[in-house]
């Protein structure tokens, strides 16, 4: 475990006032907020920033942290010395158990209830006879669009905070095999009962909410339950009409291309979008692709068309 310099994370000096810390936090929170940030690893940076603010904006924690920080540099290998927080009183405000799941091992070891209660600190929620349901947890997962059409079993790996024999928090990788139900939409949640944080004092575990996102697929675009795809066709298929076979997320289909089609013509296959109580539609957009004029024969055919067809697309546009 590495020592974290929370002052460095927020970009403030060790003498920063509470107001300066708040200001620095808000600036970074705006920069790395997952909803708006385009910064790489914004979510992870936001977690670090939240963690630094949680410690430095609490006078009790900041005082204890400052004392510890005198002996360490950022990134240095670190184990909290026994009774590092002896002599400090923590009111317990400001940290929820949900935070411990989201924050780093470094934070959890210093300020997690296991880190202190196990060493005779204020046991708080961990006291004898105290029972509490574990916190709900949240994770985002990416699935293929095809999984929403057919359903699938997917393995997901999560970091779960746990206590060791000494009462210290460590994170353990927990791999779950999850059945992705058919008909799931982008942004929808799957609730896994009892797969959240463990309960306290024998209380039940919380639930795990998985937020579904589709892995980008250059062949398909999705809006709600409707799916859009572009299908290339030859000029003669577009001009004369044709019956073509094309792959779709639910399998290959025979598609009737109406005569006189142009690039951009959209054909709706009703009910062939993501299945559900009201299944979405599949929109196929035609793209007319010209054969290359890379042989004598091909060039001859183009020349014949140029002579035989009275066709000027710019005239039709009035250009």
């Amino acid at each position, binding site marked *: 475990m590495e020592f974290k310099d929370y002052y460095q994370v927020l970009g403030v000096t060790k003498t920063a006032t509470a107001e300066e810390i708040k200001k620095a936090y808000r600036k970074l929170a705006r920069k790395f907020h997952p909803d708006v940030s385009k910064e790489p690893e914004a979510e992870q940076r936001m977690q670090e920033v939240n963690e630094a603010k949680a410690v430095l904006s609490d006078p009790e924690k900041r005082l204890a942290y400052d004392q510890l920080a005198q002996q360490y540099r950022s990134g240095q290998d670190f184990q909290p010395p026994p009774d590092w927080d002896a002599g400090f009183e923590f009111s317990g405000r400001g940290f929820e158990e949900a935070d411990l799941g989201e924050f780093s091992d470094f934070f959890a070891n210093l300020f997690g209830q296991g880190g202190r209660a196990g060493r005779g600190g204020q046991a708080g929620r961990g006291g004898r006879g105290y029972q509490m349901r574990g916190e709900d947890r949240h994770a985002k997962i990416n699935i293929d669009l095809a999984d929403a059409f057919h359903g699938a079993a997917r393995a997901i790996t999560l970091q779960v905070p746990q206590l060791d024999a000494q009462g210290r928090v460590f994170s353990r990788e927990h791999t779950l095999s999850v059945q992705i139900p058919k008909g799931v939409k982008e942004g*929808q949640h799957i609730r896994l009962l009892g797969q959240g944080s463990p309960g306290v004092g024998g209380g039940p575990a919380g639930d795990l909410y998985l937020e579904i996102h589709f892995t980008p697929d250059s062949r398909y675009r999705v809006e709600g339950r409707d799916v859009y795809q572009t299908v290339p066709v030859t000029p003669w298929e577009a001009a004369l009409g044709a019956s073509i076979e094309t792959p779709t997320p639910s399998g290959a289909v025979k598609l009737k291309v109406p005569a006189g089609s142009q690039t951009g013509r959209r054909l709706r296959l009703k009910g062939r979008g993501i299945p559900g109580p009201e299944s979405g539609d599949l929109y196929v957009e035609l793209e007319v692709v010209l054969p290359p004029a890379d042989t004598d024969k091909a060039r001859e055919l183009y020349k014949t068309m140029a002579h035989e067809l009275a066709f000027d697309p710019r005239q039709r546009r009035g250009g």
Partner: protein
Amino acid sequence: MEQQRIIRGELIDEATLTLEDLARACSVEIDWVIERIESGLLADGSPYVASWRFTSHDLTRARRLCQLERDFEAAPELAALATDLIEENQRLRDRLRAAGMA
């Protein structure tokens, strides 16, 4: 080696979550949710509010409101305004993507 069994979850569709479920999933008190519903900041216009049932969209919105209020010490109305804009932005991006323009 942990034994792998396939876990079947519950799809949070229309009218799935109770008031207690929603509050717990956001790590907030039930009153926090009630206040925001009564102020029209959450689940506004949802046909399920009368029966105190909530959707996946309500969960996402409630978590976003909660995070904005906490991170910026924002007033609930301001957090809701930012959330409205974020949601509108996402809707437009989705439409652009569906049109093959993003």
